[in-house]
């Protein structure tokens, strides 16, 4: 019998961190991540974990401390949101360049200005080129599962790179959802012991971390980082298989929904996929051949397999919850790049939704589906990039 529990996304992630009991956590409060680290602080206060919790004076210092702690030679986690991730930006590159396997839930939040505390994906998308692995999660269950898998991926001997686990702020972080927890001992066994590499605290073997590298090596160094990222696909797949063995839950690099026989499709990240799936079910009842693809691993991006999964479609709408002003939004650009080398290129449109927590409702999905049906019928010329659910 599965034991299902109703929890918020933040509760689920705090629970995963309790089970994993990292050596060091450094964090700074920011909405909507705050309540997750508060819960973790309770675990520390009550002795449920013996993690050294550093409550630092900024996110920049949180990431700096995580880098120091990770180089020191132990398991490290932190968490942040929106502007907090933006403040870390410089140090994100340092963490990946220094091969620090730090794990960080990102509770997605919009960026200022104007100030807004609600969900969109501008934060994590802004960090997509920082050399971090990114796992995206539709709901609390996926976020919990991804977070547990993240440690195995980050700390894998061939990888040793930091991982972000993205989950929608408020929509998931603060809403109750039903999910299943794994037992503490199962999680601990799955994650295993941390294996240090070149630990700074190994006083008998002094190492120097963070040299200046000039033009004779920097270029190759960055290519090497790219090569390491390319080996994440296999590792992430292996970890997912191992995870399926302990949980019964299957994870690919992306999820497809009713896509095999579809003619039109939606590509979307995180929680909005739930609403889209419901509407796809309705449209299917009306005979519309529609499906969905939801990337889970956004960095590195599995262009080939995603291209394979999408190339048979006639029209695809890529829904982005972040923007690139005066350009196509980030997810759209990746999907376009996945399909460009194909003989058959589906017609692509980019629709921006839900910025700063704007509700994404079933009728918005319906309008997108209708638009795709129209395009399939008449091959009308449409604006490739549009904003949906704009106030009129």
């Amino acid at each position, binding site marked *: 019998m599965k034991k299902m529990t109703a929890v918020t996304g933040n509760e689920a992630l705090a629970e995963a961190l309790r089970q994993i009991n990292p050596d060091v956590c450094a964090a700074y409060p920011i909405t909507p991540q705050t309540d997750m680290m508060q819960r973790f602080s309770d675990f520390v206060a009550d002795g449920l974990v013996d993690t050294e919790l550093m409550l630092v004076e900024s996110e920049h210092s949180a990431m700096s401390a995580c880098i120091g702690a990770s180089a020191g030679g132990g398991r490290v986690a932190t968490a942040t949101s929106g502007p907090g991730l933006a403040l870390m930006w410089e140090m994100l590159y340092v963490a990946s360049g220094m091969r620090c396997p730090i794990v960080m839930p990102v509770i997605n939040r919009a960026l200022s200005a104007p100030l807004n505390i609600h969900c969109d994906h501008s934060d994590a998308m802004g960090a997509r080129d920082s050399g971090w692995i990114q796992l995206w999660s539709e709901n609390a269950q996926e976020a919990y599962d991804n977070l547990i898998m993240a440690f195995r991926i980050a700390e894998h001997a061939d990888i*040793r790179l930091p991982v972000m686990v993205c989950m929608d702020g408020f929509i998931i972080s603060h809403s109750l959802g039903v999910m299943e927890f794994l037992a503490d001992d199962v999680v601990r066994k799955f994650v295993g012991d941390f294996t240090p590499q*070149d630990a700074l605290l190994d006083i008998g073997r002094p190492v120097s971390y963070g040299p200046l590298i000039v033009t*004779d090596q920097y270029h*190759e160094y960055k290519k090497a980082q790219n090569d390491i990222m390319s080996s994440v696909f296999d590792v992430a797949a292996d970890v997912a298989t191992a995870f399926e063995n302990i949980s019964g839950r299957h994870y690919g690099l992306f999820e497809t929904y009713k896509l095999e026989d579809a003619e039109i499709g939606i590509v979307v990240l995180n929680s909005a996929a739930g609403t889209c799936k419901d509407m796809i079910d309705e449209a299917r009842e009306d005979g519309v051949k529609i499906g969905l693809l939801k990337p889970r691993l956004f960095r590195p991006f599995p262009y080939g397999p995603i291209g394979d999964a999408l190339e048979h479609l006639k029209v695809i709408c890529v829904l982005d919850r972040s923007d690139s002003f005066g350009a196509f939004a980030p997810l759209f650009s990746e999907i376009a790049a996945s399909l460009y080398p194909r003989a058959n290129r589906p017609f692509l449109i980019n629709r921006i939704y839900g910025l700063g927590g704007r509700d994404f409702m079933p009728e918005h999905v319906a309008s997108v589906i209708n638009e795709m049906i129209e395009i399939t019928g008449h091959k009308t010329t449409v604006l490739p990039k549009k904003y949906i659910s704009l106030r009129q």
Partner: protein
Amino acid sequence: MKTKLINQSNCRPVITEPGNSALLKTGTWRTLEPVLNKEHCINCLLCWLYCPDMSVIVRDGKVEGFDMDYCKGCGICALECHGKKGEKAILMRKEEKE
């Protein structure tokens, strides 16, 4: 100095040979060189302490000379040397380069 070629397997910002900067001979930077006159030396070891480049050689508490592999010829040792009876034990002179 030729640096190593970076690839996927050694892409780590870590140097694991402590103090291997000793392979870099900074003595080539020098234009002036210190010259020791042991007769005037009282072995106060201030020159040894103040040398920024670890280039004053001391054995058993006595100054033996300079490590010309690293000495950059700054002249601190000479300026700070009190020597004996007002006679400095270190003087700087223009180096004859071959």
